[in-house]
Structures are given as structure tokens and as C-alpha cells.
């Protein structure tokens, strides 16, 4: 194995500093800000609200609509504000991940709209988005099976690493975002780009699950710390 040191000096299984905040947008039903190192994401949840056109609404459950978007100054070179193919794909991936986590049967004929804006991109934007959306859904009072925590793992210079930065993502031999419901031990999202051996895959899964449990604790801590302001806002003590 070659001697490899991560550019920010982190250990292979170490996460970047995480900062999370809830109820950052006044007009949304629920919102959250999530920061993993230099990756900064804001998520807003609207709904459940009526779905239009009404004839397309699902009679037995609510729909989840997700829009993942990177703002033009979030990357090194200005990006067009229009949705790219990658953004449409990530929107779909996140929508499918949350489809397994939201109790949709409680709000038939309605829609839950999720808007994600990546403010600054430095790798792992989709997992940071998932972490932000999870907090925003709790803030909106949506019924969930569990919180969703996500992390990206990968392989670079034959080393297995957790929470890839933008540079690491570009130079990696493989990368794998994982999202799961930690209490229920259920995986909601698992994608892989590159090649891994079975042993490497198993090791990466173990590292990913450990990192997800750490993020889950941070999410729970964020909700508890913002509880006081939420209780005050809704007139409860």
C-alpha cells in the first residue's frame, strides 16, 4: 500500500467538521442548513399540500417531489442556473431515498415538496443534501419512520476513506454514497461509481455505517438543541 495522506490531514475514517441548524427559513414549513466541511446545503420543505392537477394526485398516499439545485457560485467555475442532467438525476435519487422514509399514507392526495440548494460544493453534496432534508422534514412535522443520515465513502490510492472532499471525489478509484435509517438499520440509498473488490465493499460499508451513526447523533443533537426555540414558536413549554 502506498503512503497516502488526505489533503486536509484527516484520518481515513474521520468526518469533516459538521454544522447543522434547523428552521432557517421563515416561509417554509420546515427548513434546515447542513454543512460538512466546505459543502454547504440548505433544504426547505413545503407541505403536505394539495397536489395540482388534482386528477394526477395519488388517492392512497402523498407524493414527494424533490428539486436538487446547485447555485451558480457554488462551484469553482460559474454554473448555469438551469437544472443539469446531473441535478435531475440526484433529485430523483433523493426522492426515491425519502420515499421509503416518509409515512406517505397519512396524507393522501397531497404532495410534499422538497427544495435543496447547494450553496457551496466540495464533494458529497448529495449526502449533505439528504442530511439537511432529513432535518427539514422533522422541522415541517412530517411523519417519518426514522431520521435519515448519509455519508459518502470511497477508495483513493488503495485506501478506503470516509466523507470525500471534491478533490478526493475527482481522483478516487471508487466512491459510494450511502443513506440509511440508523434506528431501523435500513439502507435507503446505495450508489457506486468505480470498482471495488467484495472485501473492500464490505469494509467500506462498515466504515460508512459507523460514520452514519455519528451523523445521526449530530442530527439528534441539532433537533434537541433547536427544540427550545420550536416549543417557544408553537406556544408550548
Amino acid at each position, binding site marked *: 500500500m502506498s503512503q497516502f495522506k488526505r489533503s486536509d490531514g484527516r484520518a481515513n475514517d474521520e468526518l469533516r467538521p459538521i454544522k447543522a441548524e434547523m428552521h432557517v427559513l421563515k416561509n417554509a414549513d420546515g427548513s434546515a442548513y447542513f454543512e460538512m466541511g466546505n459543502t454547504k446545503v440548505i433544504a426547505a420543505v413545503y407541505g403536505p399540500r394539495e397536489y395540482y392537477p388534482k386528477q394526477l394526485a395519488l388517492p392512497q398516499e402523498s407524493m414527494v417531489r424533490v428539486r436538487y439545485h446547485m447555485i451558480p457560485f457554488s462551484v469553482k467555475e460559474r454554473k448555469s442556473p438551469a437544472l443539469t442532467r446531473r441535478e435531475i438525476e440526484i433529485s430523483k435519487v433523493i426522492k426515491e431515498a425519502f420515499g421509503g422514509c416518509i409515512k406517505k399514507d397519512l396524507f393522501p392526495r397531497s404532495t410534499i415538496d422538497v427544495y435543496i440548494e447547494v450553496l457551496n460544493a466540495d464533494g458529497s453534496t448529495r449526502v449533505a443534501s439528504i442530511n439537511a432534508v432529513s432535518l427539514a422534514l422533522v422541522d415541517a*412535522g412530517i411523519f417519518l419512520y426514522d431520521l435519515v443520515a448519509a455519508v459518502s465513502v470511497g477508495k483513493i490510492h488503495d485506501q478506503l476513506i470516509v466523507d470525500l472532499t471534491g478533490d478526493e471525489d475527482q481522483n478516487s478509484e471508487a466512491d459510494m454514497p450511502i443513506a440509511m435509517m440508523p434506528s431501523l438499520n435500513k439502507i435507503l440509498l446505495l450508489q457506486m461509481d468505480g470498482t471495488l473488490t467484495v472485501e473492500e465493499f464490505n469494509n467500506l460499508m462498515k466504515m460508512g455505517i459507523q460514520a452514519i451513526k455519528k451523523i445521526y447523533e449530530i442530527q439528534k443533537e441539532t433537533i434537541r438543541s433547536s427544540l427550545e426555540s420550536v416549543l417557544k414558536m408553537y406556544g408550548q413549554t
Partner: protein
Amino acid sequence: MIKNKDICLPGDFLASIEEFFPGSGVYEMNGNVYASILGKIIYDLKERKVSVEPIKKPSIYLKRETTVIAKVEHVARNLAELKILYVEDTKTQTKLTAYLILKRKSSTLKDSNFLKPEDYLRARVLTTEGNIFVSIRGKNYGLIYADCPICGNPLHPLLKNKNVLVCNICNFKRRSKVSLLYIRTKS
């Protein structure tokens, strides 16, 4: 040990199904009861039921028997389409559509003035599965505000017959199902 009124998060284990039945705000999976919303845990030791009282209810958290205030949008022969404005005295951000079935067989309801667009109703939710259906049966349910279709002034219920609304300006009369909580305005 989890206590009553403790705060729980979605996915938190609350009890096993042998100990407590699942109530509202919780779900059962593999014999365990978990919370599904951020809220306060309530253990009902009499009924052996565990539920979670949400700290923040979603904007369309409607249950059976919930009282709503709605505005009449459209009246068809047997059905009126309403927009829900208030749920349990809380203004809703999103205006939900609800339906009220009009039983035309009843002699009192034959009148075409029974419900008009722009009327305000106090109703209770009958079902939320699929479409939302409401009912105005009961003393406190029915019309709570209506304007005169001729001169636009507010209508008032007659003292002798509460179900007859009259306009003090142009004497227009209409028969309807009026709630005891009808809003009386100065005219």
C-alpha cells in the same frame, strides 16, 4: 427509562407491542412501537396505548371529527365543494378542498338557496381517506356567515326560526342550516 411527556424523535423506540398498543404519531414494526414524529410521548396506562403528541402539526393534519371552517366554492346538485380555511381555529397555510354531500331528499334542503358560493361553514370532518368529506349535522355546525346575494350586506338569522336568514336592508330571505355560532355583525 422513558417517561410520560418526554420528547421523542422519529424512529425512537417507545415500547414493545406486548406492553402498549400503537396510538397516533407512532407506528409498529417487527413487534416494536416507534415514534414517527417529533413530539411528547404519552403513555395511556388505562388503555395500554402509547402515542406521540406532535410539537408541530403538519399544515393538513386532519383527523375524523376535526372541526373546520370552510368557504363554499361551488355548489352542484348533490355536492358542495369547500375550501378549508381553519382547522381547529388554526389558519391553514394550504387551502384544502373538502366536499359536503347535500341530501336533496330532505324537504328542508330542496331550496336552491340552501348553500351558495362564498358562504362560510363550520363543519366536522367525516373522512380523510381519499377525498375529505365533511358534515354539518349538529347544533354548532352549519352556516356561520353569509352575505345577501342582492345587496351584499350580511344576513342575520331570524329570532323565531334560526334556520332562516334575512337581510335587514332588502328583506331577502333564505332557508339554510345555520350554526348556533353564527357570526352576528352590526348593520
